[in-house]
């Protein structure tokens, strides 16, 4: 059994301040529920009356522990105190509870405090006895495998599978366990977000005779579209395949080989 701790933040809508489950935290709940061989604890630091906790219960977590934040203690020190007691092998958190300034730092602070490895933005995880493998979306739109020895911390990407709807009966049957009665409350102040204004982009002079040429000259890729040519299906198929190869998209079998090579490069450099 791998011990997993899911940290839930108070979810707030960025514009109205209304309680909503934070998108990536909700996905972390769903991910933890689907884990096999795992003993999962869900925890929140702050007030037990926090309205978004009921919403996390409605997503399926059976019980949420609420830990108190002492007046003069910092979040990460309070957490590490509890973590010592729980000895979680894996800590799952959302990537960032909102897109406000300096959000999503807590997992990184924890990782540096506990000197654990951090898997950033996973969309799925698999647990073995002492190892975690996950899938992370990369900026080039591929999804990449990531692996680490436990104990580790993983943040859940907002691109992870949809957490589904809040179920009322689960909301009622789920329990919120308070540590003590004293608690802090999350500020109800709505952040100072404004509607994005129109800002004129600096003028880039487009070059070319046709619309798409001008567009392309601004975007940056310079190759000129050729005239459409009539060709036989055989020729067309060959032309398409060779073009795909040029662009780095060879047919499935050979592209799988490329991937294997790339993986190897990554592993070699790690050694």
């Amino acid at each position, binding site marked *: 059994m791998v011990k997993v701790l899911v940290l839930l933040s108070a979810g707030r809508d960025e514009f109205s301040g209304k309680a909503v489950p934070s998108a990536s935290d909700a996905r972390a709940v769903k991910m933890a529920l689907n884990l096999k061989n795992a003993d999962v604890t869900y925890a929140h630091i702050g007030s037990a009356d926090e309205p978004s906790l009921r919403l996390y219960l409605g997503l399926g977590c059976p019980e949420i522990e609420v830990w108190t934040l002492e007046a003069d203690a910092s979040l990460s020190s309070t957490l590490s105190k509890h973590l010592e007691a729980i000895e979680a092998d894996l800590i799952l958190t959302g990537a960032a509870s909102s897109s406000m300034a300096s959000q999503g730092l807590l997992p990184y602070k924890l990782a540096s405090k506990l000197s654990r490895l951090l898997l950033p933005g996973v969309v799925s995880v698999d647990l073995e006895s002492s190892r975690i493998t996950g899938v992370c979306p990369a900026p080039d739109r591929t999804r990449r495998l990531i692996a680490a*020895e436990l104990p580790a911390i993983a943040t859940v990407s907002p691109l992870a599978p949809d957490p589904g709807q809040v179920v009322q009966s689960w909301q009622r049957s789920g329990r919120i366990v308070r540590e003590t009665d004293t608690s802090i409350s999350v500020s109800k102040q709505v952040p100072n977000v404004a509607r994005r204004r129109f800002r004129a982009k600096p003028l880039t002079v487009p070059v070319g005779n046709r619309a798409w040429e001008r567009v392309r000259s601004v975007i940056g890729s310079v190759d000129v579209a050729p005239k459409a040519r009539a060709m036989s299906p055989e020729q067309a198929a060959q032309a398409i395949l060779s073009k795909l190869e040029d662009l780095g998209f060879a047919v499935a079998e050979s592209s799988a080989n490329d991937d294997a090579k790339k993986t190897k490069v990554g592993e070699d450099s790690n050694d």
Partner: protein
Amino acid sequence: MTLEKSDNLKHVLAVPDFASGSIAREDNLFINAVASFCATVGAEFSMLAPRSFLEDLGKTASLLIGCDLPPGVFQADALHGVIEALVKQYGFHTVVFPSSEWGEDLVRRLSVSGNKAFASCVGFVTEHGFVQHIGQDHELLVAPCELLTLSEQFVGADARAAPTQEIGFASVSTCSVEFIEMGCEQLGDVTTAPLESARFIIAAGNGVTDWNSFGELAKALGATVGASRVVCDRGFLPRDRQVGSSGTLVSSRVYIALGISGAVQHLDGIHDVEFVISVNSDPGAPIHSRAVLPIVADANAVVQHLLEASVTKEHGHG
């Protein structure tokens, strides 16, 4: 390599992802955004890139720093160490990342280790601070800080060409990552993956009638399936496959349009695609003018031949 330390000029270090292992469209967009950012704040533009890219990046930055980490592989801890060392050595005032998965991760690592604030997805700079983009159409003003990620839609002053250019090397072949391995495997069923995050899409329009072959072809090529509105309306493919302004706006690297004429709404949907390959029997179809490889032929016949060719190729490799 020396960096002139004139007091009135700030030095900005940009760290592009180069996630695909080459200089891709998103990297170009980011480099343009940083150039514009530097022009706006009056700073000198330096860039950290894999050693093998330095020649291609030529005149983009006034200082290029090569590093020995392999491109297309994310080694967060190693890169983190390199950037910290560079900042210490050359006194960079600001470090800028793209607002991508990797950039957002690195900025947080640096923020925690240096105990500095950061701004993410900055889209504009005012005299009061940085303006962060939030969601689709909102923004938030934050105090200026030394770490930030730049939005792709950054709006700033017109960037001038870099006046001088110097190339240096940061030698960092040793890296501290011992446990994290990151491969490049494409996972799950690619053909039914979400269209908005697909790299390679094969789309069918009214000209395609042999749906079995089309499905097999998508599988053989390892491409995500897309469709025009007509095809989804007729129920040949589910609605979540629809590309266009009333479906999904895609931004893949390659888009093969089979039997699609290219209505305005469809062309709008593929606006951000890098390379379009079109097959249509009508030589005057608008999709041809958008394509890098426009082919006038019957889509069904081409699907058959593509399928045969790719299957034999697959076996030939195996």
